[in-house]
């Protein structure tokens, strides 16, 4: 199957463009609907893989370190992210525990691992891993379902709500999670579909 990688269409309004060599590496928008066709990031691959590795390590810290401590008179309570997830894990609320687990841990980690699997061989000069295309595609599909940043806003709201009832101290995992959200947001600014797909397609398979 022969196709032309410089010829792309806007996924939102179907207008076809032929990108010049300079347009491939600069920021371009669809003339009709304004969709960002290219983000114009050089070294996108190295940045994406590096940040994906960082966020995987941070997630390891988040899972095993204490998240928040609470003091209310004689009572002390401490919660890890695992406790937050398991808080729902009784009876009919079980599915909700799974949902929280998936949105704040499973999906963000899967995205990082999929990106590393698909793009790391390009950096090390190896041939594409089998199924690299599916891995990269799923990394994009999963993006709206990774809700780490929304969870952090939820934490902020919960802390204010508890504020009057008890004193709260933040643990290591809390700050690791904040860092994770920053790293993921930064990573998304490098996720130029055009650059990633062109690079993957031109690497030997």
């Amino acid at each position, binding site marked *: *199957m022969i*196709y*032309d990688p410089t010829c*792309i*269409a806007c*996924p*939102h*309004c*179907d*207008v*076809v*463009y*032929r990108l010049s060599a300079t*347009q491939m590496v600069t920021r*371009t928008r669809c*003339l009709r*609907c*304004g969709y960002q*066709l290219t983000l114009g990031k050089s070294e996108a691959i190295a940045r994406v893989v590096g940040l994906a590795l960082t966020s995987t390590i941070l997630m390891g810290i988040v899972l095993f370190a204490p998240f*928040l401590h*609470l003091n*209310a*008179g004689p009572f002390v*309570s401490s*919660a890890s992210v695992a*406790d*937050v997830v398991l*808080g*729902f894990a009784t009876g*009919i*609320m079980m*599915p*909700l525990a799974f*949902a*929280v687990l998936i*949105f*704040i841990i499973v999906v963000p980690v899967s995205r990082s691992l999929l990106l590393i699997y698909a793009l790391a061989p390009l950096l090390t000069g190896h041939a594409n891993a089998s199924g690299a*295309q599916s891995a*990269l*595609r799923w990394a*994009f*599909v999963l993006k*709206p*379902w990774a*809700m780490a940043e*929304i969870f952090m*806003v*939820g934490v902020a*709201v*919960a802390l*204010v*709500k*508890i504020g009057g009832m*008890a004193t*709260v101290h933040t643990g290591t995992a809390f700050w690791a999670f904040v860092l994770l959200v920053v790293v993921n947001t930064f990573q998304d600014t490098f996720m130029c*579909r*055009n650059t990633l*797909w062109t690079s*993957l*397609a031109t690497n030997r398979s």
Partner: protein
Amino acid sequence: MDISGHQQKLTTARDAGMVACTSCGLVASPDVESCPRCHARMQSRKDGSIQRVLAWLLAGLILYVPANIYPMLRTTQMFKEQDSTIVGGVITLIHHHAYAIGAIIFIASVLIPVGKFIVIAYLAVLLSRPHTKDPHRLHFIHAAVEFIGRWSMIDVFVVAILVALVQFDVLASIKPGLAAACFALSVVFTMLSAQAFDPRLIWDIADEGTPK
């Protein structure tokens, strides 16, 4: 087709007799089933997009009802049990002068979901018949709904954290209510509804004045 804007006539992939990949942007001949570059399924326009949008929307709307009737949280404080619904929780926050937090919860759990139901239903109904609305505006509201919809999850996460943290025997403890599960599902279904929508439909009608 030059993106620098020298040429004003824009051609769509469909007009050129081609099919575009929404995953990686590649343009291919219409006889291919999956994209040669990223292996995604290729469709000139998503099959039954509007019907799928309405089905997910209805599911989300149905679940939004119990999400508001049943309690989100059950707080036990000094042997007294108290149930609070989504709106009840917001009212309590306002009584305690926590206006900013009250506003965040109200926006995330009431304004965004209700706004989303209205906007998606409006787009789905509008695009199934001829109309003269500005496509740029329709495209903007669709993009806004797709971007903002996931933020409704805030309240579900707040409940999860409160349940995990506030476990002090008789002094105070918090349990999740049925509404938390209904609300989470409602958000998931409306997100799927917004994703099922094919934004290219907005521009097709702009081109021809009538849907194909």
